[in-house]
């Protein structure tokens, strides 16, 4: 097991280096001199001045040197300064992290709380009317883009019923109910697809697990159906589900970007967006590296968790 984990760790570090390197390279090589973002347009004709700024910011050093320097800084938490606001990128990111984090956590919790029971029931009652209804709803859930769902929610709950604010964010430290109100619609808009995916995967896993011999032997032992379902079928099935949930958390990074934009939530995604529109290279680069790293790390963590919870792999390794 130790060796397996060590191997994955090496791969993780290698992927992280690759991702950061590619991001850095792209920023440095692609057209659009980043220096231009630093100096006013009038001054861009002044070659000497431009050269001076280049030198100051280290744009003239060899690429690898610059990458090394940048990476060293990045590891210490220094992702550079925003070209637009001039503030350290890390200082802009830190207060936004919990917002995006909360959105993701609530989404996943909703997904699990709704998806798991539905998946369990429809797998257990395969072919029943309830199962068919659940499957049809899931099919719909998977076919509605999250921004469309968000719009529908806004229309119904913010505009027509006026129950919830259409946009904006109240921090949990300011008001718990306010915070719940601001997280409700975005989280639901994101969670519907999660619910659909979880329940589909769990359903098909339960169905195939219930065909296993050990389920038959559990029946022959005289265990109650419900006990068999929860203790013998759900457990092996939940291994796949755990992996899937982990992978989906990584994938939610994309979803939160869209939803934060739609609901004007001051999270990482919205900051990335404004940086894109402001052509704030450093900010885009910093956030890209951060989000890609989070993506890679979450995926790797899922692997570790899988190794840890599946006794078969745990012992084999």
């Amino acid at each position, binding site marked *: 097991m130790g060796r397996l984990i060590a191997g994955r760790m090496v791969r993780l570090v290698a992927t992280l280096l690759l991702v950061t390197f590619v991001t850095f390279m792209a920023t440095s090589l692609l057209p659009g001199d980043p220096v231009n973002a630093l100096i006013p347009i009038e001054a861009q004709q002044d070659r000497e001045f431009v050269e001076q700024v280049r030198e100051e910011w280290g744009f003239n050093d060899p690429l690898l040197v610059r990458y090394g320097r940048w990476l060293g800084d990045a590891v210490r938490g220094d992702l550079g300064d925003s070209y637009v606001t001039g503030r350290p990128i890390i200082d802009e990111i830190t207060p936004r992290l919990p917002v995006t984090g909360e959105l993701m956590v609530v989404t996943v919790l909703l997904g699990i709380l709704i998806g798991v029971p539905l998946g369990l029931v429809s797998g257990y009652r395969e072919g029943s009317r309830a199962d068919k209804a659940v499957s049809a709803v899931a099919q719909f859930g998977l076919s509605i883009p999250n921004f469309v769902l968000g719009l529908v929610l806004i229309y119904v709950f913010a505009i027509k019923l006026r129950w919830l604010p259409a946009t904006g964010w109240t921090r949990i430290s300011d008001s718990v109910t306010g915070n719940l109100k601001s997280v409700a619609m975005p989280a639901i808009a994101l969670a519907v697809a999660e619910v659909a995916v979880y329940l589909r995967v769990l359903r098909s896993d339960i169905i195939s697990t219930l065909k*296993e*011999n*050990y389920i*038959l*032997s*559990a*029946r*022959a*032992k*005289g*265990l*109650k159906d419900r*006990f068999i379902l929860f*203790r*013998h079928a759900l*457990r*092996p099935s939940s*291994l796949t589900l755990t992996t899937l949930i982990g992978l989906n958390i990584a994938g939610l990074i994309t979803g939160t970007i869209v939803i934060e934009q739609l609901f004007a939530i001051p999270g990482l995604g919205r900051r990335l967006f404004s940086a894109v529109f402001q052509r704030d290279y450093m900010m885009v680069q910093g956030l890209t590296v951060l989000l890609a790293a989070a993506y890679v790390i979450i995926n790797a963590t899922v692997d570790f968790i899988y190794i840890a919870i*599946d*006794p*078969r792999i745990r*012992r084999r390794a």
Partner: protein
Amino acid sequence: MPAENASTPGTGPVAVSAGSPLLRVDDLHTSFHVAAGEVRAVRGVSLTLDRGRTLGIVGESGSGKTVLARSIMRLNIGGNVSTSGNVEFEGRDLLDLPLKAMKNLWGTELAMVFQDPMTSLNPVVRVGRQLTEHVRSNLGAGRGEARQMAIDLLREVRIPDAEARLRAFPHELSGGMRQRICIAIALACEPALLFADEPTTALDVTVQHQILNLLGREQRDREMAMILVTHDLGVVAGRTDDTIVMYAGKVVEQAPTRVLFTEMRHPYSEALLRSIPRIGQRSHTRLSAITGRPPDPIDIPPGCPFSPRCPYVQQKCREEPPPLVAAGDGAGGASHLSACWYPVGTDAGRDAFARNLADRLPQTVVVAEGSEFAESAAANAAAEATAANGSFEGGGA
């Protein structure tokens, strides 16, 4: 524990009048409805089993043994099964029992050890829990009590270092160990009847004997009735009181085990006997495995189902199905039944065989060529059967 068992009212043989058997199966039919048609897996099986007795069910793969056993326990799952006939267990009609009441019998009265110990234990649940969860839920034992019981059970099935094993996962144990655990699980609630469905097929030869001996010992000690399902006649030899030979969902021969080996009447039983690999011979000398394959259970030929493969086959066999009737006046008497028009060891059979040999019917020729070997095999098996049976009785007394 065995002592306890014997004194429990209703489960020990003492409390039961000699007249009523523990299990009586009457004309049991089971089919599966699939896209291609109706799979007739069991076609009219009748049998009886007394308390504390053992019954062997023998037949090739696909002959319906598993389906028969599961039909009796009502363990066939899926919406496409239909079962008819009569199953009487301890005076109750199992097929008419509400499913709920039936479920109460599972584990406590009727238990089963499955063919493949690799897949019949849940891979992600620790052995200790699998051993006792049903004891706790069926009999309401407490946690500590259950744990002690699990340790005792593991000791009983001769698993070394029992306490440590409780925390193991199934894949950490060898196949033999797993099957011992499955047996322990089946025995845990002291069932009155144990089905052992090919309990050793998936195991190494050396382990097979240990497991069979273990089953035999437990069966005797607990005075539990047992149905031992196998495709190997050698397994039942010396291990069961009675034996049923099944082919294409039907009983083709039925007799006290000793009688079966000495006065075998059905050509299919004979063929099975010939195909037993004997220790002594090199393992690949399965000279006379039965030619051909069992019939497709969706499309069973009219007449005798064995007729396409039978070395004794005559025209009559292909037209009229032979009834299961008393097999002559041998030692088995009325308890020896066989379903064959030209039984082995009778003049009719010998004539039929000779005719077929003269016609150079392939399956007959094959048998004739291997006959020297076959005879010695039969003799060996008979000798072994008697010997084992002797020791069996010695052990039982």
